[in-house]
Each structure stands twice: as structure tokens, then as C-alpha cells.
């Protein structure tokens, strides 16, 4: 019974916060509601018994991706009047895309049925979640996993290349050179006689 209550609670909060993501007027509030939705999704994963996925969802999406989202949104200076102006122009296109996605979701929901022989628990007995996922990823699907890693690597190098600028006019700090400096290199002691120094 407790699980049922928890399920309906988390689902209700998740749907409400997902609605608020598009309904909120302040974009920062939107991102915060998005984080709440992620969080509740993680809670639903825990209820399913997929605790590893739940934690990864929070670490990756909430802990890293959404923080960067929030950074960008906070820095933006958004003019609401400007934002509302093009609304009518974009409405037909938005409605078509929204309708298409809704149709696809509804199609999947009514056509697809779960395999009646599929196990209810996501992991085989006696193996923890983390182990089961690791075995599948690193034995059965190792090449797909490596390919995904390579794609991410390419994306990362691309981002670095796009943002890297060599600016010769900027003075940079070289920590090792600074640490290697001795007092004798920087300071010279002069014995100045009274009345003779210039």
C-alpha cells in the first residue's frame, strides 16, 4: 500500500511539474520545475527497483546538465514582450509538431503491449542492479558502448576546438616557473652609503 501511495504521489508531482515547465512565466522557474520533474522520475525508478538508474539520472541530469541550463538561463536577459511577439507566427508549426508527437505517443500506447512472459523485476535474482547493468554493457553490448564513448569524445574535442582561442597578448601564469623562482632571482640587495645614494 505504501508503494502505491508513493507511486501516485511521485507521478502526480512529476506531471504537475512537467506542466509547470511550459506554463511558468519565469524561465528560471521553468528550469527549477524541470529539475523537480527529473527528481520525481528518479523516485519512480527507485520504486521500480532500478536504483542505479535513478542515482545516475540525478547525478547526470540534475547534478550536471540542469546546473548548466540554470547557468545559461540565469544569465540571459529575457524580454517578455519580444518573446510574445512571434507567438502567432510560430503557433501553426508548433501545433503540427506537438500533434505529431502526441499522435506517435498515443499510437505506441495503444499498439504496444508488454511481453506477458517478461519478468516483473528488472534484474535477475541474486545480482544487484549495478552488476546486472555492468555485465550487459561490458559484455553483450561492448562495441555499442565503445561507439557511444567515441561519439562523445568527438563531440568533446569539437567543443574544445570551437572555443579554443590563442591570444598572444594575454599574460599567463606559469605555476611551475613561479615555484622555481628563488629570492635571489627577484631581489637584489644593495648597500647604499648614507648621502651617496641617488
Amino acid at each position, binding site marked *: *500500500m*505504501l508503494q502505491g501511495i508513493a507511486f501516485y504521489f511521485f507521478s502526480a508531482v512529476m506531471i504537475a511539474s512537467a506542466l509547470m515547465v511550459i506554463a511558468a512565466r*519565469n524561465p*528560471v*522557474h521553468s528550469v*527549477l520545475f524541470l*529539475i523537480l520533474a527529473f527528481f520525481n522520475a528518479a523516485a519512480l525508478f527507485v520504486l521500480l527497483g532500478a*536504483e*542505479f538508474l535513478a*542515482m*545516475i539520472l*540525478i*547525478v547526470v541530469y*540534475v*547534478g*550536471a546538465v540542469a*546546473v548548466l541550463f*540554470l*547557468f545559461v538561463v*540565469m544569465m540571459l536577459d529575457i524580454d517578455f514582450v519580444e518573446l510574445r511577439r512571434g507567438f502567432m507566427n510560430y503557433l501553426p508549426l508548433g501545433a503540427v509538431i506537438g500533434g505529431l508527437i502526441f499522435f506517435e505517443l498515443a499510437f505506441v500506447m495503444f499498439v504496444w503491449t508488454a511481453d506477458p512472459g517478461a519478468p516483473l523485476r528488472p534484474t535477475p535474482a541474486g545480482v*544487484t*542492479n*549495478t*552488476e546486472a547493468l555492468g555485465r550487459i554493457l561490458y559484455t553483450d553490448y561492448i562495441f555499442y558502448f565503445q561507439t557511444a564513448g567515441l561519439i562523445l569524445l568527438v563531440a568533446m574535442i569539437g567543443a574544445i576546438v570551437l572555443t579554443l582561442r590563442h591570444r598572444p597578448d594575454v599574460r599567463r*601564469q606559469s*605555476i611551475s616557473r613561479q615555484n622555481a623562482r628563488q629570492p635571489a632571482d627577484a631581489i637584489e640587495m644593495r648597500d647604499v652609503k648614507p648621502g651617496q645614494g641617488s
Partner: protein
Amino acid sequence: MVFIQLLQSLGLPYEAAWLLSQVLIITIMISVLLVIVAFVLLADRKIFAAVQLRRGPNVVGIFGLLQSFADLIKFLVKEVIIPSGANKGVFLLAPLVSAITALSTWAVVPLDDGWVVADINVGILYIFALSSLGVYGIIMGGWASNSKYAFLGGLRSAAQMISYEVSIGFVLITVLLYAGSLNLSEVVNAQRDGWFAFSFLFPTFVIFFISAIAETNRPPFDLPEAESELVAGYMVEYSSTPFLLFFLAEFVNIMLMSAMCAILFFGGWLPPLDIWPLNAVPGVLWLFAKICFFFFLMAMVRSIVPRYRYDQLMRLGWKVFLPISLLWVVLTAGYLLASGRVPL
């Protein structure tokens, strides 16, 4: 467990008994934790004062023992000031997020063999996830205050915590390679034959300790609240109880990081040697002593080391700790495989 049996003997159904006993255990744990935090706060100020040849708080109670409680009452009865330009909801939510995430992290910390509120399989990941959630309290507070200082402090703090979380993540991976489990109790049990700090993992312990100081925004990494530049950073507009909650969250997190040092590298509740006078002491006391030791180290670092500049902080996180910890993940895996000691 004891509570559940007690409540079930009173005629309650299992689920109700479970719920009640969990609530009881959590209440007891939080109250004990908060009382300890009050004294830890005092100890922090006393150590800081002793390094500077001062006496520190010594007026309220003998040796100033009741100082923290006096401060608590002061914070509670002061007026809550909300800046007129602030975003009220987010402004008041931010300290709550900080305090709740800090306190709920303690749910998976094993205090002794079996003394843990939630003995989940992914304990390390849970702590990692919740400590990454703690960033939100700071960003939200910095943004909602609608002040330049607070906003800059919040941004700095978020960037800092994200940077150091990466190397903490790799350090945690080396530990779980050694222990073969993400469950914190099993991590401690894997150290029965020798603490992880006195093995191949010693360099990662050093990285973890320094990153833990950076993660909790303590000096020398207290740039978010650097008083010489940002007044008090994200906390600048806060007063009274919301300020108290931020402060509390910071100290609960410091305690947690000390506890994590003890659990991941120094054998948690285990005595240093499994011989008679040592193993007769309850495990909770061993853990507490270890937490106190690491807290003392952090307090000494705070009072001795000067503050880092921001670019130096980022350099240390990304150019020193990240490569070393990544390299150590590879080396640890190779070492375990070569010596045939892979757990599982």
C-alpha cells in the same frame, strides 16, 4: 529493527509499524546530529581562535560550551528580512533545499554494523547524487537575492562544486573497485584486513580530502563567500532562520565529508587493530573519533592556509586532481587485475 518489533507487539500492522519506526529513528538521528553539530561549531571557533592565540567564545556557559545554543536562539528570534527585489518563493526555498539535502544524505551513513537508516545498494552514488543537489540551494539563493554579490557568489560556488565533484567521482570509483560494492556497509567490511588509506589508494585519499574541503566551500576554498571580495557571497541577503539553515547545511556537510573520509578510507566503525581493549569499544565511538579527527584537520587547514585565487582553484581542480584521479582509476583497476584481487 527493535522499534518495529516493539510497535508490532502493540498490535500495529507491519507497514504502519515500519513507517513509525523509520520516523522515530530519523528523528533521533537528526536530533543527535544537530546537537553534535552545535558543539562542532564551537570546536571550530575554538580551534580557529587557538591558532590565532585568542580564547574564542568563553562567556556563555563554562568554556563557552553553550555559545552555539545562544546563537541558535539569537537567529530564531531575529526578523526574517526579504529584499524587496527578491524572488520570494525561490529565496525562501533555497536554504530549505540546502538543509534538507545535507540532512538526508546521512540516511545511508553506517554508524556501526547494521546501524544505518537506509541500507541501500547504491549508497555511494546516493551520497554523490545528493551532494550534487546541494549546489541548487546555493545557486537559487544567489539568484533569488537579486544582488550582484550574491549572484557572483552563487555562480562561483556552483562552478567550484561541479569542478571538484568530477574528481570526487573518480576517487569514489577507485574505492568501489577495491571494495567491490556500492553499499557503504560493505565498503567498511571490505576494510577488515586493512584500511584503504594504507594501501594503493593513499593518493586518492589525499585528493578526496582536499576535494571535500573544496566541495563544502571551506577555507582555503571559500571563494563563494570570500569576504574580501564578495562580502558574504550567496548568503549576503540572508538573515535570521534562513541564514541559520544555510549555516547548518554547511556544517552538516562538513561532518558528512569527515564521515566519508573515515568510512571510505579509514575503516568506518572498525577499530585500528582487532585486539582486546580496542575492539571492546563500540563502533559508533570509533567512527565518532575518526570524524572528530578529520574535522580537526579541516579546522586546522582552515586556520592555517591562505585563500586560493579563483583561477588557481580551477587549475587545481581540472589540471591537477582530474588527471591524477583518472590515472589512478586505471592504475587501480590494472593493479587489482594483475594481482588477482578483483572482488566479486
